[in-house]
């Protein structure tokens, strides 16, 4: 058992990333608060980053590193727009529960 603690390999990172990704997907599908959904999406993106970095190291290829940096920057931009939209919705309704977004429905 001690081996796992001291010999952390690529596989462990990949499995951790896959678990993080699934937690993120679960958060998006299950939680109803727009902010938590946004956090779930961030988790998914970070899982992808971790996968990219692991593979980048595995292949000895630096493009994965640059890709991860770009993803971090884009995720920040996306989160800022998303939070602005959340604030705009909150101003109108006093809550950000996605199940209560029912003005548009037929």
């Amino acid at each position, binding site marked *: 058992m001690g081996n796992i603690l001291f010999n952390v390999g690529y596989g462990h990172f990949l499995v951790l990333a896959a678990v993080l990704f699934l937690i993120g997907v679960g958060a998006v599908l299950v939680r109803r608060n727009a902010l938590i959904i946004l956090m779930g*999406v961030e988790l998914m993106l970070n899982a992808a980053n971790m996968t990219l970095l692991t593979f980048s190291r595995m292949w000895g290829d630096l*493009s994965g590193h640059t890709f991860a940096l770009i993803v971090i920057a884009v995720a920040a*931009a996306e989160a800022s727009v998303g939070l602005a939209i959340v604030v705009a919705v909150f101003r109108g309704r006093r809550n950000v529960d996605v199940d209560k977004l029912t003005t548009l429905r037929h």
Partner: protein
Amino acid sequence: MNFSFNPADLGYLIPYLIMAVAGMLLVLAEAFYRGQDRSSLVGLTVAGSLAAAVASVVLYRQIGDARVPLLGVMLIAARTSYVLSALFSVVTALAALMSPAHQKEHDWQIGEYYGVMLLSASGMIMLAHAANLVTIFLGIETMSIGVYVMCAMRRRSRRGNEAAMKYFLIGAFATGFLMYGMALLYGAAGTSSLVEMQKALATTNNPGLVIAGAFLLVVAFGFKVAAVPFHMWAPDAYEGAPTPVTAFMAAAVKAAAVAAMIRMFGLALGGDVLPFGSLGWASPMVVIAAVTITIGNISAVRQDNIKRMLAYSSISHAGVLLVGVCALGLGAASANGAIVYYLIAYSMTTMGAFAIVAYVGSKGRERLLVDDWAGLGAQHPGAALAMTVLLLSFGGVPPTGGFFAKFYVFKSAMEVYDGQLIWLVLVGVVNSAISIYYYLRIVTAMYFREANQPFAPTRSGGLLFVIAICPIIVLEMGIMPGFWVKLVGG
């Protein structure tokens, strides 16, 4: 990867640079702008996008049949990419022309809108050139983030906010899938270049990674082009967004997402191995295509709201485009040109149709229900005639561009080895017939029913220009398709 910056590469990217710089200038101009009326910003927007379109045409004529790798094969310049970038630029110009009247009428005059629109269009042009996972991701995000902002611009409208929120959450969710799928493919291939990836993936000793990555990408692009079962956001987002933004979303964003699919599935995941077999990406894609065409049409039949009806119709058009992508993956040589032709015809039709929706509505009364359009033919015969032509093009009735678009896509699907996609073509043709029913509902309302109250349309030169030019282009594409077929290289 040895990479050296070659300034000459920038010459091939002039359409992109014009778009991006004009977008930034517009955002800057807004900061120094005084007064309420933003219509003078429209001039710069239209000038910028038309300049990008002209630059694309010039480069298209210069480049010939060459495929020039740019900036260390991050991007590729080829004829198709310039056709697409010209299309995106023209659609952006049309959307900008539609906007000022709608902004004034419905009271959401925000100048940043135009800058964000051009920046978003610059993302689309990047997608037209993309040749690397990084540029595909950057292009999609540049485009989408801009459109989220545009969608949310009508801040005081409950519907607008709700549409923006739904669109954003689904879009961000799809980005998560896209990114993780790309990471897995990168892991299987060891390269992020789409060209090298195809070779590396075909001989990988990790087929599980490839299958999972391709599957995640199918899901992600399914969300982006609004394919069933990932389509539920589209009717809400299309209905709640301001009409010019809806037009931009339905025409340009969808076209750019399909352009990215051509790259991703035709290039990186194409070839003789990856699409085929029960675990290849083409098997889920053909099912999604068939379901998308059918469900989109059946749901459209039930709609009374014209924007929602057009949203469902655009979902079913996405299905036809997916048929083209499947044919491309399964080795039909003509599929690439057929998809691009379809995108041109579909984008022009969509821009015109939403322009008429914006025209018919007026302050406090958007007139979005089919019943509200009763009697349009008697009071505004020009608009009704234009709408009729566009609806026939949507339905695929000759002699319109929509007919030849469907014809070429289905023809390329027939070319697939062993007639594997014939059943899909049959589904598509039957659905075209169904779709005529709900398109004609609008036509009968316009011509054969009395208006319950007089129309007070939003009048503006830009809007009328879009309403006039789109049906003309659509008819021209249907009567003389030869020029366009040569253009797309079919």
